[in-house]
């Protein structure tokens, strides 16, 4: 659970979208039956704190480790990347998948 105390108001868009991405990732991790520690182990991370950072909506899954995250969560990498693009780069996602040529 996130307890927030902000010193200034953050822009809702990017932050809100990252939080939604984090919630989705947490859902997927739980569906895969993994704890944050177990996911971190599968990703070869020293600590599991980054998993929490991402799930709480403050960090992003780095592009270079998206495939590893996807495989650890049992999701096809293209599906995983496309879903995260909705949150991380919504304009790019719209251009690639929603705008008709």
């Amino acid at each position, binding site marked *: 659970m996130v307890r927030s105390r902000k010193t200034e108001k953050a822009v809702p868009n990017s932050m809100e979208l990252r939080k939604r991405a984090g919630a989705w990732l947490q859902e997927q991790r739980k569906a895969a039956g993994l704890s944050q520690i177990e996911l971190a182990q599968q990703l070869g991370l*020293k600590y*599991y*704190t980054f*998993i929490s*950072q991402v799930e709480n909506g403050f960090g992003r899954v780095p592009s270079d480790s998206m495939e590893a995250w996807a495989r650890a969560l049992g999701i096809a990498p293209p599906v995983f990347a496309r879903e995260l693009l909705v949150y991380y780069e919504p304009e790019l996602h719209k251009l690639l998948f929603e705008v008709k040529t």
Partner: protein
Amino acid sequence: MSVIEFPRLAREWRPDELQQLVSLADAARFSWETGATERGEPQFYVIGPAPEHGCVLCVSRLAQGYVLEDGTGHVIGEAPALNRVAVEVARAAIRGSRSFVSRVMVAWITIRLTVEERFEPIFQESEEMLARYAPQLAAFI
């Protein structure tokens, strides 16, 4: 690689820890938020500038100490005490190629801690001397 798992401790930041972290973030004009891991370990997120407002530094307190990571999961410092973390992080930032914001933040933290460590004892000593010699000085006036 095996993930380091620690026994559980208090779920909240202690007021002294939070005060130190908040004052650092405030002075650097970064906003901040707190959160926790699944196991309840407290995390302190330093939020970067607009438009992204992404996490530039994340401080987590685990049973054995503090872990500092950047917004991409790189561990940039780990130490048993908060001030030692800043020193370790500064070393890492100088050696590595972390983001500009992280480096600025780290440099600032290190400068602040250095100033506090060096000057607080001097101020304390001055106060002690004043208390000791003030009555004698007053006698001369």
